[in-house]
């Protein structure tokens, strides 16, 4: 009899616990969808890799990292797991770690990846913990090639409009040098001949060659960026197009205009529209990564161009804080918090980071102007996903191991705090840092990620 009662009691308790777990999973779930936007080489993949490593090490191994992340107190974290997102390939976190172990930086993203980080938190409220013993905080991250981002603003343009603006862009600024061969090619091209498949390919490949060359030389405003990647689903070989001189785009009956206009429409409807719908709209928090070194490495003009590109990028998103109704009933997400992040901040000495932050603030001016009249919270951050440098012999120096295996010290002149201060004809070459062998400890020593997450997760307070 006593045994039966005990069994019954155990069963009831197990059932209650199971029900509590299920109830918790169903009702105590908080989902945050992050879209990390950044131009190519802005450090998106490395940031994701570090983020997963930091959160896993913090919750599973108890390492005291991310000290400013108060939203997820280590004492309350029960476990953390990674789950795939339907419709996306899983993020190659383990592959990236293997690459780091082999002394290589993670490969650049060439297709969209998605993953969920589910952090299970212990319920601390005395009464609630018996009914709902835990709560899940779900982070959904989408990683996609930076090259795709620059193409989204093309959605709102006609072919003629885009062609004219692209032609004007490649005739000015630092890209004019790299575009001169392409322009010479166009000038010699016989547009009187019919646009056959082979002739179109010839023109598109010549333009693509310019895009590749310019990208390698720090030019950020390159459209269509999707043509740079073989992995893009759009068949640019068959439906390619290029900007054309205004003498052709002004004549709507010109056969080259007609064919490129048709291809441009296909590019918009078959590639950009689904891309924007699947990736860019379903988000409530946006991180815009900016690689200031791409500009500092080259010239003031590159920095101005970066500012312009970011300004165009801001058109990509629907800004405005989503309400419970729009989120749960209309299933419509709008971005409520935006973080502008300068990555690789460990590559400048600590003494120069205030200037770097000030420069970042100026670079984002155009993008921020887009949500001036909207209830958007925004903040600027300096982040290093991995602390690869050490303090130098003085406050303006850093030390690091270069790709030749030498331990070197770089002494920096003051980084300009505004675009105006960037001396014409001078640049700040980016240190060619190798992957340190103690990369895990250096990931955990990374700075700014906790501050960034706390801002995005915090309930409205300015951290």
């Amino acid at each position, binding site marked *: 009899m006593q045994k039966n009662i005990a069994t019954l009691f155990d069963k009831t308790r197990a059932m209650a616990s199971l029900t509590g777990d299920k109830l918790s999973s169903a009702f105590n779930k908080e989902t945050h969808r992050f879209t990390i936007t950044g131009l190519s080489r802005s450090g998106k993949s490395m940031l994701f890799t570090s983020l997963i490593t930091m959160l896993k090490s913090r919750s599973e191994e*108890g390492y005291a990292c991310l000290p400013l992340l108060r939203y997820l107190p280590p004492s309350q974290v029960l476990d953390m797991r990674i789950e795939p997102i339907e419709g996306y390939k899983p993020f190659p976190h383990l592959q990236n770690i293997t690459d780091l172990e082999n002394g290589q930086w993670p490969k650049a993203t060439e297709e969209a990846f998605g993953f969920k980080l589910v952090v299970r938190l212990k319920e601390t409220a005395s009464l609630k913990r018996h009914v709902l013993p835990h709560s899940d905080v779900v982070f959904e991250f989408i990683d996609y090639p930076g090259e795709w981002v620059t193409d989204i603003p093309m959605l709102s343009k006609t072919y003629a409009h885009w062609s004219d603006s692209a032609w004007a862009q490649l005739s000015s600024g630092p890209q004019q040098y*790299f575009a001169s*061969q392409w322009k010479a090619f166009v000038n010699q091209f016989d547009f009187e001949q019919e646009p056959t498949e082979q002739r179109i390919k*010839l023109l598109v*490949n010549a333009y693509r060659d310019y895009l*590749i*060359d310019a990208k390698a030389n720090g030019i950020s405003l390159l459209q269509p960026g999707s043509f740079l990647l073989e992995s893009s689903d759009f068949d640019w070989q068959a439906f390619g197009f290029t900007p054309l001189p205004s003498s052709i785009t002004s004549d709507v009956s010109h056969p080259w205009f007609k064919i490129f206009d048709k291809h441009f429409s296909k590019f918009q409807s078959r590639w950009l529209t689904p891309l924007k719908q699947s990736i860019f709209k379903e988000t409530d928090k946006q991180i815009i990564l900016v690689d200031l070194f791409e500009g500092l490495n080259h010239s003031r003009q590159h920095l101005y161009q970066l500012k312009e590109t970011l300004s165009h990028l801001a058109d990509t998103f629907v800004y405005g804080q989503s309400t419970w109704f729009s989120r749960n009933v209309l299933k419509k997400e709008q971005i409520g918090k935006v973080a502008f992040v300068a990555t690789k901040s460990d590559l400048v000495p*600590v003494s120069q980071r205030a200037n770097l932050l000030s420069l970042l603030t100026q670079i984002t001016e155009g993008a921020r102007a887009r949500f001036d009249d909207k209830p958007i919270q925004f903040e600027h951050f300096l982040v290093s996903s991995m*602390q690869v440098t050490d303090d130098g012999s003085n406050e303006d120096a850093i030390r690091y191991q270069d790709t030749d295996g030498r331990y070197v010290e770089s002494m920096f002149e003051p980084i300009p705090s505004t675009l105006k201060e960037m001396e014409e004809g001078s640049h700040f070459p980016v*240190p060619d840092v190798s992957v340190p062998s103690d990369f895990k400890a250096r990931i955990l020593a990374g700075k700014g990620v906790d501050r960034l997450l706390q801002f995005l997760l915090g309930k409205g307070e300015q951290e």
Partner: protein
Amino acid sequence: MSDKPYKFDESPEPTRPSTLKNNGFGEQDGTAYSEYASQQRDQYDDQLNKTTADDGNDYQDGEPMHKSGSVNKPQYKTKVKTQTLDIAQPKTKLPQQVSEDVWEVDVNKEGISLGAATLGFGVVSLIGFFVFEAYTTLAANVSEHPIGTGVLGALLVGFVSCFSFLSFKEWRGYKQVNTAMEDAGVIRNLLVNKRNETSPQKIDRVLSQHGKRFSRGSYAAHCFDRYKQQLQDDMTGPERLGLYEDTVLKPVQDKAHKVLNKESVTAGSLAFISPNNLIQTFAVIWISFRTIRRMARVYGLRPSTAGNWKLLKVLAQNIAAQGVFDLATDEVANQIGGSLSAKFMENSAEAIAAGALNARLGRALIKLLK
């Protein structure tokens, strides 16, 4: 951090080789474009030769100037100077693991404590005097006892010294509590005005001073070590304060409440099993002092035994309240008869009262020390 190694060079990153040859061109197309590009290069190189001969423009070696005859490749002056060091890169340590919070109130002390030494010296001196007395009695006629007198003198000096040092420590403990309370006031003000930008140096100074006062081996010192390990050079003043709050103030407070709960339960249990009021009063006094000592171990501040009048006042009030409660429960028990259930009820009520009074003492202590 970079996800691609950059070239550290005086010039911007080198041009990536064109992928035209591998980009899926039809053989015919590729050839057509290559031919065109080759012609262009020849043409521009010819132009370049002419240009350099004419105006002596300084182009980079090995850079075919096929881009343009009119637009020069930009040249930049570097603002970074690099030198090779003859040392190896230091290894970065993994951060401290904090998953196991193993700190306990009572730790096994190694060696002999100062209190025990004092007692020991006292006892030895006493015994020594007795022995000396006996020795002098036995050897009344011996006028010189240099060794015995020396040893006994040394023991006495030790006892007096240790006793003096103990007294000094008591006085310092008392002073320390007052200073720590002043520090706590400054930290409270900083926390209240967290949004006002206070310099990180000032905050560091205040927090370090506060941290230094924590006694070695205490929970607060353990938390303060953790705070120092997590501190990063780029943290702002408010972030430092927030981190201090998260890693020191809150955990210490939580631990203090846990210890207090445990002590209150012990106080209640002792009151429940005490056979008479005298033993009960002694038990309450003992557990009260133990609570003070254990809580002090959590906060890292030891209010001196004779130092903190406020705590003693609370303790005295507690004992008085316990006495009054005893009388009341005795009276109630007499009224309802001297049965076992009445005794049980009386003891239960006294246990609850003892627990509550101990909790009151603990709360007063937390208020003083937090």
